């Protein structure tokens, strides 16, 4: 049997269209065919995790059972009246939730490039959802555990391979209700627009930058041996490819969710228009950066403040920025370039904050007009593109990896 990368080729879209038309007709007339939705979800999961990929399908099932049991246990613990909300139990639960992901991320490090057998496409995105559910269960925001609903949330097929990362309470609310007809028509309109914008992004622009332009520049850069302008050209081409490919994918995921009557959050909001690096992270891979903000950065800050680890608020924030981004770097993979990428963004956030404070203090002397705004956009864009050059690993191939010829 063939297998499909989600949104990878026209055939996948034809399957999608055929599968969700009945669902759409139902929604349009006030019904959500939940049983049918479960069946087509299974079908698309098999398309991606079946065929000669079946081993990852087994891993996915094993992973799912593990996490369901874990969240169920933790939820039961929290719901029991006689127990207190112990910190160490919570920490244990989070660690146990992350363990499979850590194993998958670390395996290639010990076994030269080999992939872990417990891995599957999208494991990190599901892990984010699990950890978030555990955290909100600890906070008492999520009061009940519904294994079926939770499973639907984790395995929601439009977003399974690379997000956007939805939140449990938001998803559950959407899933429980049927949108009013006029609202749903608006959703269809938006969904269709997103999907077609996705086509332009992924199959026209990303194809041009990634498949046509990049290999040529790459070749020239390799031929030049050492530093050359080609590296700069590569930096921009790679950045464009990264954006249009991922944003295109995200648009598909969000668009299909909308057609299914689920308002999966957006992932990108014109990131290259950002005026500073903080602005950038509010526009780039938003569901990931908000996840990191809410569940790592904020919690770190609270922890530091509660235990008075640093005297000043500024230091607390700065240290947390760096740790937050460093963790994001590690999440991307255990290579020097991902970790450097994380550190780079951490320090960029620190510098950005320092500058904004300085600017506020000396408001009278520092001009602010259309021109400085344009300059800020230009500067941010280049700082970001440079970070993507690090992220791409191309510098590694160019300067440290053994030459292929």
């Amino acid at each position: 049997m063939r297998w499909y990368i989600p949104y990878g080729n026209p055939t996948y879209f034809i399957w999608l269209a055929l599968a969700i038309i009945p669902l759409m007709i139902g929604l349009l007339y006030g019904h959500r065919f939940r049983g049918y939705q479960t069946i087509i979800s299974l079908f698309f999961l098999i398309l991606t995790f079946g065929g000669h990929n079946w081993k990852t399908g087994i891993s996915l099932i094993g992973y799912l059972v593990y996490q369901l049991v874990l969240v169920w246990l933790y939820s039961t613990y929290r719901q029991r009246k006689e127990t207190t909300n112990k910190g160490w139990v919570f920490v244990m639960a989070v660690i146990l939730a992350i363990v499979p992901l850590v194993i998958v991320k670390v395996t290639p490090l010990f076994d030269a490039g080999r992939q872990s057998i417990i891995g599957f496409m999208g494991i990190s995105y599901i892990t984010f959802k699990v950890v978030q559910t555990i955290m909100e269960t600890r906070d008492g925001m999520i009061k009940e555990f519904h294994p079926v609903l939770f499973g639907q949330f984790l395995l929601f097929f439009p977003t399974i391979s690379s997000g956007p990362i939805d939140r449990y309470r938001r998803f559950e609310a959407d899933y429980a209700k049927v949108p009013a007809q006029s609202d749903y028509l608006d959703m269809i309109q938006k969904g269709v627009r997103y999907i077609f914008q996705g086509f332009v992004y992924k199959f026209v622009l990303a194809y041009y930058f990634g498949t046509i332009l990049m290999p040529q520049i790459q070749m020239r850069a390799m031929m030049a041996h050492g530093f050359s302008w080609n590296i700069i050209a590569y930096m921009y081409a790679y950045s464009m490819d990264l954006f249009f490919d991922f944003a295109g994918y995200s648009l598909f995921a969000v668009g299909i969710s909308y057609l299914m009557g689920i308002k999966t959050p957006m992932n990108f909001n014109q990131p290259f228009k950002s005026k500073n690096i903080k602005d950038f992270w509010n526009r780039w891979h938003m569901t990931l950066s908000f996840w990191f903000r809410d569940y790592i950065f904020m919690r770190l800050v609270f922890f530091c403040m509660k235990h008075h680890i640093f005297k000043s608020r500024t230091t607390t924030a700065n240290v947390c920025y760096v740790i937050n981004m460093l963790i994001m770097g590690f999440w991307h993979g255990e290579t020097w370039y991902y970790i450097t990428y994380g550190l780079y963004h951490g320090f960029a956030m620190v510098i950005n904050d320092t500058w904004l404070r300085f600017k506020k203090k000396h408001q009278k002397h520092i001009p602010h007009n259309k021109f400085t705004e344009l300059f800020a956009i230009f500067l941010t864009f280049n700082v970001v593109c440079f970070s993507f050059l690090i992220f791409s690993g191309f510098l590694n191939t160019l300067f440290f990896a053994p030459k292929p010829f």
Partner: protein
Amino acid sequence: MSVKKRLFMIFGPIFAAALLMLALFLSPLWSGFSHVNPKVDQNAASSLSPQVLKGQLIKSNALENGYVPFFGSSEWSRFDPFHPSVLASKYHRSYRPFLLGARGSQSLTHFFVMQSINPELKNKKAIVFVSPQWFTPKGEDPNAFSFYYSTLQTTNWIKQQNGSKMDRYAAYRLLQMPSGNSDKILAGALARIAAGLKPTSLQMLYVNLRNRILLNEDQIFSRYRIPFNNEETIAKNRKLLPATYNYPKLDKLAGQIGAEKTNSNDFQISNRFWNHRLKPHVKELKGFQSEMSFLRSPEYGDFQLLLNQFANDHTKVLFIIPPINAKWQKYTGLSAQMMARFDKKIHFQLQSQGFNHIDDLSHDGNVPYFMTDTIHPGWRGWLKMDQAIRPFLTQKVKAPHYKVDNYFYSKQWQNDNGSDGSFEY
């Protein structure tokens, strides 16, 4: 607004776009739009790009404008001042090589490449560089075949095929490759061809439709996908050559450059190749080829496809049989006796069917600076080859008389190792 009207406003444009797209890609009008900028032909001729190999427009356009197809594989990427493309442009030859093939492209790939340029091969000339290394026990690597596979060429061929032995064998071989099974309807048509039947009319409808769409796609876009430019490398190498062509003088220069570029090792292997590819493993490689044989291989059948197609097109072909770096051959234990038999076997398959233009260099493996690495010719090797290529392409060659023998498709021939002296011709 009523629900119906809103739905129409949302989905109407999609249907309109789909119709427009179908009209665009099914339109027969594009075939008139076939001008290709000579600069694009020039870039494509030395690009070694799989895009060019898989396409149609650029190749056929170039072959109509003074380019000659040079079928081969990885040797074409060994650019130095004596590479055929450099010599042809430096000395303003009446022909320009159009390099076809790169690492991993073998006879079966080339058979399908020919399906995109058959009209341009009719009664014309071609060069084929036959690597002994193609003739391994498993033949062409399915992954390499997939890399160069073109549905456009396959559908071209299905449209033209007439159920001959060649067509049946090609279908049979294609079905052994994952590429041949990637499209279920095409696979069905192939199975029928292999069995000696005509594809069903429904299958042919699909083949024609696919072919039309792919042809239009190629016709519209391929000229703008200007491949990576080896022209710069050629220009750089051109500068190293003297203004006039004098074989003894050039041969001396080739020796000098070769000596300079191979001073890091005792095998006369180019420093770059040696340092990056061989030096780290040289100990493990001692004697590693002692069991290697190029005598039994499905490649012989695929090679027959190539010859058969050349015969059908009455193409005049010069076959080049390269040597192996003799020092390396000795070190790795590759049997000289086996290589001699290989040479005989290939000669037999060629000459018994009337392919008599053979530039056999198999004995030159010990000529200093003939090879650039282990199996690829360089400096003096390229130059020696030029002594055959130049007259073949610039002078008149008699019309060939080919007698195709289907025996060469048989398993018996593929597995014949010549122990009974059957290659004597």
